[in-house]
């Protein structure tokens, strides 16, 4: 008994040495909380050299003059464009009939173009939309050049209602930088198929800053390498936007408003009638992995390709905006004057005109069931300010055969609403008039003007409500080597830890099954010990 104590004591002395060592160190885990360049294009494969057309050999003074010349040959082009979202800024849900689109939604970025048309229409494929009187039937107001310019010199600035620069101007105002007028003749004579530069001039800079809106679309896609996007890799496949977003009669496929979340069947060769040519399956089919990878191919029944193949979005230093807090707008600096502040990476973080933003890069997506149908909160809809308002209620469920688990960006915001009528408000932000928020920093005036332009009642009382806007992530596809590994989802705290309605090995456990398994293991161990004991006893007796 004594010797046993001595052995135990000696062991404890040794262990004490370890304990002493560990006291020198701090705990391993502690808490610190105390606290649009032009692209180099291939030689045009067009059968027409537009510089040889006499219709284009003239000194155009305005954009509409160019369009008139284009329409001499392309007689149906304007009519086609006028049926698209790029012209109407409106989209009708074919299933519910709900009218969506920029014209009808108050999002949680810049909120609404209504009453701010002169600025917002810098991204409209048209000329002259400056208020609700804009005539959507006038063909010469269709802007051909914004999508077909190949010189990358065609610029439309805020304040011109969609017209390009006609006179040399300082922009931004008081910046000391000047923008030269567009050489419309040269541009018209050098038109071509839309490039990444054309699409990107608006879609990379949505919400007023590079990468701000989408997260998977920013100017890094002008010259991407394969690690940023394996399809758009400039030295590889070098896809343009329109390679996937195949276009027919100027209708661009692949809009999130009418997206196919679960395309089925084999690859659809281009040229075949296909409702979703922009979907991965359009080229890769729904069994995209080699035949022997049966298990991976089975995943396509529940998982969107993007879930594994876009492990993070905003994979660059540009980053993307995660939130926009309008309630901080109109806050002045200590000197009583408006001020701006940037974040640590040099991105906009605060502006007295617009409020406060949070940005991040290499963002891990939020995953959810998605069937491609979203119900939007549109202008005039009643909201419940006691809850976070969903700008778009994403449809989808585990039992819906059209649903897949998708990666999404959720943009969170705080934006004004009418506290009596319980509606999100339209505010007049842009402009130099006395009611523009960015001019006079007066919310009341701005909301009154915005609601009047939108023909909505306004009680005169407003506050701020939390909102969420969900975007499916689908660009910045990584090479297959960088796809998610099995364990990144198949683990207790993996990427899909919050996804309900599907059994995932290593994430989900059956308590009864686990107990039975452990009981079996324990019984086996006991059996082995008993067997060994008997063998030892019998061998001693035999000896």
């Amino acid at each position, binding site marked *: 008994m004594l010797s046993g104590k001595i052995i135990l004591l000696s062991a404890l002395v*040794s262990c004490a040495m370890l304990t002493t060592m560990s006291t020198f*160190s701090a705990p391993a885990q502690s808490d610190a909380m105390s606290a649009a360049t032009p692209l180099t294009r291939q030689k045009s494969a067009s059968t027409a050299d537009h510089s040889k057309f006499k219709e284009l050999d003239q000194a155009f003074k305005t954009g509409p003059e160019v369009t008139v010349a284009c329409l001499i040959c392309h007689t149906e082009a304007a009519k086609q464009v006028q049926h698209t979202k790029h012209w109407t800024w409106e989209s009708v849900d074919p299933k519910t009939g709900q009218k969506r689109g920029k014209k009808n939604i108050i999002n949680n970025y810049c909120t609404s173009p209504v009453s701010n048309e002169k600025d917002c229409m810098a991204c409209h494929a048209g000329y002259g939309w400056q208020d609700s009187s804009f005539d959507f039937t006038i063909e010469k107001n269709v802007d051909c050049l914004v999508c077909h310019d190949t010189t990358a010199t065609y610029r439309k600035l805020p304040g011109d209602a969609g017209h390009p620069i006609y006179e040399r101007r300082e922009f931004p105002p008081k910046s000391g930088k000047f923008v030269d007028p567009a050489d419309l003749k040269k541009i018209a004579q050098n038109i071509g198929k839309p490039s990444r530069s054309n699409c990107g001039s608006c879609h990379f800079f949505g919400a007023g800053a590079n990468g701000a809106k989408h997260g998977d679309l920013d100017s890094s896609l002008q010259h991407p390498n394969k690690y940023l996007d394996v399809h758009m890799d400039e030295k590889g496949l070098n896809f343009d936007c329109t390679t996937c977003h195949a276009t027919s009669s100027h209708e661009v496929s692949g809009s999130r408003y009418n997206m196919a979340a679960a395309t089925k069947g084999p690859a659809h060769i281009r040229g075949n009638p296909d409702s979703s040519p922009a979907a991965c399956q359009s080229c890769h089919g729904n069994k995209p992995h080699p035949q022997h990878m049966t298990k991976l191919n089975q995943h396509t029944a529940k998982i969107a390709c993007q879930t594994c193949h876009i492990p993070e979005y905003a994979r660059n230093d540009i980053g993307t905006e995660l939130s926009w807090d309008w309630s901080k707008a109109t806050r002045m600096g200590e000197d009583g004057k408006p001020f701006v502040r940037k974040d640590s990476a040099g991105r906009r973080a605060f502006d007295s005109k617009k409020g406060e933003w949070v940005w991040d890069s290499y963002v891990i997506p939020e995953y959810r069931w998605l069937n491609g149908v979203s119900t939007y909160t549109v202008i005039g809809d009643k909201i419940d300010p006691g809850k976070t308002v969903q700008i778009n209620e994403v449809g989808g469920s585990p039992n819906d055969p059209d649903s897949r688990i998708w990666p999404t960006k959720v943009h969170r915001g705080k934006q004004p609403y009418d506290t009596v009528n319980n509606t999100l408000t339209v505010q007049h932000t842009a402009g130099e008039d006395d009611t523009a928020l960015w001019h006079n920093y007066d919310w009341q005036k701005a909301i009154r003007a915005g609601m009047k332009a939108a023909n909505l009642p306004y009680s005169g009382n407003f506050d701020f409500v939390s909102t969420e806007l969900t975007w499916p992530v689908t660009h910045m596809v990584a090479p297959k080597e960088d796809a998610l590994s099995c364990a990144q989802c198949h683990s207790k705290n993996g990427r899909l830890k919050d996804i309900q309605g599907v059994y995932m090995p290593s994430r989900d456990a059956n308590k009864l099954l686990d107990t039975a398994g452990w009981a079996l293991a324990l019984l086996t161990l006991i059996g082995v010990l008993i067997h060994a004991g008997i063998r030892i006893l019998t061998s001693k007796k035999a000896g």
Partner: protein
Amino acid sequence: MLKVIGGFIAGMLVVAVLGYNFMGSLMFREIPSPFGVEETVARIQQNIQSTGNGWALSGLRNPGKAVEADGGNTLPVMMIEACSTRYSGPILKDDSVRFLSILMPCKISVYKKNDGATYIGMMNAGLMGRMFGPMVGETMGHVAEDQEKFVQFDASKPAPAMIKATPGGGAGDSGSGAAGGC
């Protein structure tokens, strides 16, 4: 007597096994940051510059860029390098411990993990220093004290700008040797 020695050896074995398993977490620390990668880097840089004691930034590297150049994506990793001549001087002047220059400049790593959160990784300078005699132990003890100040954040203060261009370390890429600070 044999039993005493036996017990001691058994204890040593236990220590060896436990030491082997826990040495990593003793020598290095990982703490979560309430901020994103860039802001964490910027705040640490600001703290380093305001700590005094001869501390200066010597570099900011992004090892992930080198991985990308060689083929592959990584989540962001930024490595802040800082040095204090007050602490490096005595060690560099002593031939017996001069090899510890391999630990210079001090490095603090800021990175994102798959949970989307940002973490700070750093060496446990205090513990490491004790292994190399009293002079190094005392010096590294001071380093450890200052390191603690580097990762104390005041969230009420606005985020400073990340300092990308620091002497020797380049602008957050996989640049060459760090000359500044030490």
